């Protein structure tokens, strides 16, 4: 995200810091690229197939325990909601909204529908005792981007908007102060999630979590289920397990540093990618959704400016050569 060099000194320091952190004046380029990347990645890679979502229909709706679904059931009768046609219709609408959100047509509405639809479908799937973690933050990110001006550039809405009464409000050069808060909030949520995971290991297990046997047991449990060869190799090397345990906790506990210090991001994110790839190769636990969300840390505005400068230099150099 790009920032200018002046600050408003008429407000108290805390308010200025708050505004500077959440609402800096910048373009919507990072938000738009995150929208395209995250929605397309969900549709193509991470979306659960209908067959998997429909498994929840075989359970007794009396067991539903998720507050989101219980809230919906206070408005919609359970016979209507816990029904093949209703949930399949919701799934279809959600996917159509996802396609519209990717191309950026009625972006705000379609992205909100996409985020909320997926939240409801997955919350329903995890309402019967079973619960998995990878999709939760992704769904929150989709909803938050739906509440932001993510269609202001690189979208059909933007193409139409630039031919409207206010063309300067659309496109990659248009500046606004509401294009950053959603990305920052998702960054904070990711930091909290990692910190929760790392601190739980330290608070529940203590230093015993680093004893090597803990990681051996965890990897062994998943090895007997998924049979990952790297898992078997890891558990046979005790000291490697100790080193991996320490690295895991350090990366998780200090991931939040990436939210506040831009220059630390490449190191922290590389640590995160290494952690998740290691977990996937040894335990088959697919946290690809979290790795995909690292896209929100990338400063696409700076990259775009650098690309434009290079393009200008190259075209200027070409013109000079032609003249010569």
């Amino acid at each position, binding site marked *: 995200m790009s*920032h*200018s*060099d*002046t*600050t*408003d000194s008429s407000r108290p320091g805390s308010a200025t810091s708050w505004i*500077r952190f959440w*609402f800096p*004046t910048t373009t919507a380029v990072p938000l738009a690229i995150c929208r395209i990347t995250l929605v397309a990645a969900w549709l193509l890679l991470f979306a659960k197939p209908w067959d998997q979502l429909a*498994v929840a229909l*075989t359970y007794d709706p009396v067991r539903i*325990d*998720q*507050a*989101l679904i219980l809230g919906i059931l206070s408005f919609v009768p359970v016979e209507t909601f816990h029904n093949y046609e209703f949930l399949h219709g919701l799934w279809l609408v959600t996917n159509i909204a996802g396609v519209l959100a990717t191309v950026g047509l009625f972006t705000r509405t379609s992205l909100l529908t996409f985020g909320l639809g997926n939240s409801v479908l997955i*919350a329903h799937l*995890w309402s*019967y005792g*079973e*619960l998995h*973690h990878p999709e939760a933050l992704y769904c*929150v990110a989709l909803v938050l981007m739906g509440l932001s001006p993510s269609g202001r550039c690189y979208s059909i809405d933007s193409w139409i908007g630039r031919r409207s009464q206010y063309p300067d409000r659309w496109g990659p050069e248009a500046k606004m*102060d*509401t294009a950053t808060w959603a990305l920052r*909030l998702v960054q904070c*949520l990711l930091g*909290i*999630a*990692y*910190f*929760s*995971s790392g601190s*739980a*290991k*330290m608070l*529940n*297990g*203590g*230093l*015993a*979590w680093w*004893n090597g*046997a*803990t990681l*051996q*047991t965890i990897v*062994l*449990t998943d090895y*007997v289920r998924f049979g990952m060869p790297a898992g*078997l190799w890891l*558990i*046979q*090397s005790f000291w490697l397990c100790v080193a991996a345990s320490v690295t895991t906790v350090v990366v998780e*506990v*200090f991931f*939040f540093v990436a939210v*506040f*210090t831009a*220059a*630390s991001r490449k190191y922290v994110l590389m640590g995160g990618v290494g952690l998740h790839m290691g977990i996937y190769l040894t335990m088959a636990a697919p946290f690809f959704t979290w790795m995909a969300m690292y896209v929100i840390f990338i400063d696409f505005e700076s990259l775009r400016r650098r690309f434009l400068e290079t393009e200008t230099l190259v075209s200027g150099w070409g013109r000079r050569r032609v003249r010569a």
Partner: protein
Amino acid sequence: MAVSSLSAVVCVAAYLGSRKSPRPWSLDRRVVRLLVLTCALSLVGHLIGATAPEAFGWYAGLVDGVDLLAWAWFVCGGLAAALWLWGGLPPATTRPVGVRHLLLSALIVLVLGLQVWALFRARPTMWPFIDYPLYGAAHRAPSRAVHYRLYGLTAQEPIAFVEITAEGLGASWFVHHTQVIPQLLIDPSDVLEEFQQTLANSDFPPLQLLVPERTTFALVNSELEEFSERQVVRLDPDLSEPAEARPR
């Protein structure tokens, strides 16, 4: 205790570093005092806990509370160190605070509040705001893991064992492996009728026997050893047909 030990390492490093050239550490004498208090309380707490664990339960809670406080300081130290190493956020242009900012700020606080609240709830029932205590428990050697499988013997030719998987039943892996098979192994009478109905409505051929199996894997001297326990469960032939095909 673990947190205190971690804090101790960071505090000592910070203290030694700041003696030579003063730096903007948030870990100063206050945190050193807090650390000493925490370590002392932890030590006393552990000694008391080892001798009379029930009588001094409140004391252990106090120690945990102080330990958490030290943990918070430790995190502040980490952030301060990162800011010192890499610098903070660049300054940005901002406009006057408007209604939109206030509303968005309220939303931000709500979302962060919900996420933090979810971390302290006993059960994760506020999806997508949930806690992440992933693999939090510590284990001791030797490392063990248990895996459940279910086989069935077909009732008609060709007689053979088939593995009954969650996918084949259209059921959740989690429910099948952590609830259904263990129950069939321990006390089949509780779930047998319901399971046989599920089986009859699936694509599996009619079965005469079920064989739930529990395999325990143990890592001994870097070698994986395993042993299995099985149970044979006879099925009621009347329930082996789909519900709609059964005579009423």
